[in-house]
């Protein structure tokens, strides 16, 4: 009986992992294809970081390290980035969420936006510095600022829309 339960548990875990992989992969591709819109010509927002943050902090869905690594790896190959750059960002992002939010201020109501900003900028800065070393040249700063700015602007909008939808669904239920 216990054995059977274990099998079901692993199957459940496996299906969750597959679903989160498909979800993250879809978000990453959607994020890249946003550059077809003239508004995102300079750079596209980091929807993946918003998605991961909301999954972990709000919905208690915990994408595994392997899933993040694989998603980033495939994205790098599809977009022609240096292999591993996106994976580093995603893994660092998850690491900072775990060390800043879940360990230090767990179970407390805090301003989500500020923590998202800190975590996003920290992980982005690390990857940016790493890219500077790898490429040995300084890139133009306007796409980088746009990338950070538009992500930080979009985060509260997505957050409020989720709140709104949950409020409406609760209203309908009642």
């Amino acid at each position, binding site marked *: 009986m216990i054995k059977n339960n274990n099998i079901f548990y692993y199957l459940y875990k496996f299906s969750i992992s597959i679903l989160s992989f498909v979800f993250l992969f879809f978000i990453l591709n959607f994020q890249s*294809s946003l550059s077809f819109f003239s508004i995102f*010509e300079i750079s596209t927002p980091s929807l993946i970081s918003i998605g991961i943050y909301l999954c972990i902090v709000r919905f*208690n869905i*915990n994408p595994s390290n*392997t899933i993040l690594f694989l998603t980033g790896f495939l994205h790098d190959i599809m977009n022609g980035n240096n292999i591993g750059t996106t994976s580093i960002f995603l*893994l660092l992002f998850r690491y900072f969420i775990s060390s800043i939010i879940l360990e230090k201020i767990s179970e407390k109501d805090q301003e989500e936006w500020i923590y998202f900003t800190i975590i996003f900028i920290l992980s982005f800065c690390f990857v940016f510095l790493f890219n500077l070393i*790898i490429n040995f040249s300084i890139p133009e700063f306007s*796409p980088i600022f746009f990338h950070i700015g538009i992500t930080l602007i979009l985060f509260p909008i997505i957050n409020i829309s989720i709140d709104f939808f949950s409020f409406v669904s609760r209203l309908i239920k009642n």
Partner: protein
Amino acid sequence: MVSGKPSNIKSFKNSKKFNSILILLCLILVFLGKLDLIAIRNIKAFLSDFLAPVTFALNKPVEEIAGVFEDVKSAGALRQENIRLKTEVRKLKVINSKASSQELELLELRQLLKVLPERRNKIITGRAITAPGGVFANTVLINVGENNGIKVGQPAISSLGLVGYVVNVSLKTSRVLLLIDINSMIPIYLTSSNWPAVVKGQNGKLLKIKFLSSKAEPIEGEFVQTSGHGGRLPSGINVGKIVKSFSGKFFVKPTVDFHRLTYISIITNKDILPFKSKKFNGFAPLQKPETSINLKGLNLSGKRVIESPED
């Protein structure tokens, strides 16, 4: 509201070590990728070939929606666009009539100087599968590959000018490194003053001018073309225009709109010259045409010169 659930905290603590190991592995992967090993290049080529249909399927709906938005946006400005196009057509007609007479003159001069005819470029055109978005890389995947005769290093062009060059080839797809990418460097010359230089991408909209002589005085709006130095790219392909920044520095603005790239042509007959240090004597810099008379009544650039009676 932050809701760090205890189950989440426990799972995070357990996976922290694994997280660090994976980050280390990624760092090693980046360095290995940068070394440009053949094995890694082949894996990349195989996977991009394998994932190309997925990428295309995922990008297509967004591309179509973006196209609809652009159409709606441009519909409002149709009248103004029409007026602008009419004036442009009038200007082009005048230029065309001048150009046809100058072409005849050029042909005659070529015959007179016994200039060898230029080899016609063989071109293969492919459709861009991915969008060139990215903070750290600007590349485009196209749906033509080794099967169509594409090789690494071949130049990619559009109707407006140079797009970049091929950096990775698989059987059915190839990856083009765009001019604006930080790893791209193209030898160019300034069309008005003939000064050679190199343009480097910055992952932004403008290209940095490098190795330009201190004596050179670029003119704002001056066209920039490939010089063909190094034998990697053919000469005379449009790259962009000179623009001046607020700080007074000169940059090159590419003529190609990289976000509207649908079809990209690859010049396939351009053989990549191997670098041979023994025979290499350095590149001769382009010379500014002298005003001295080469043919009677003409200077080196083919313009008519009126001789003064003292000469």
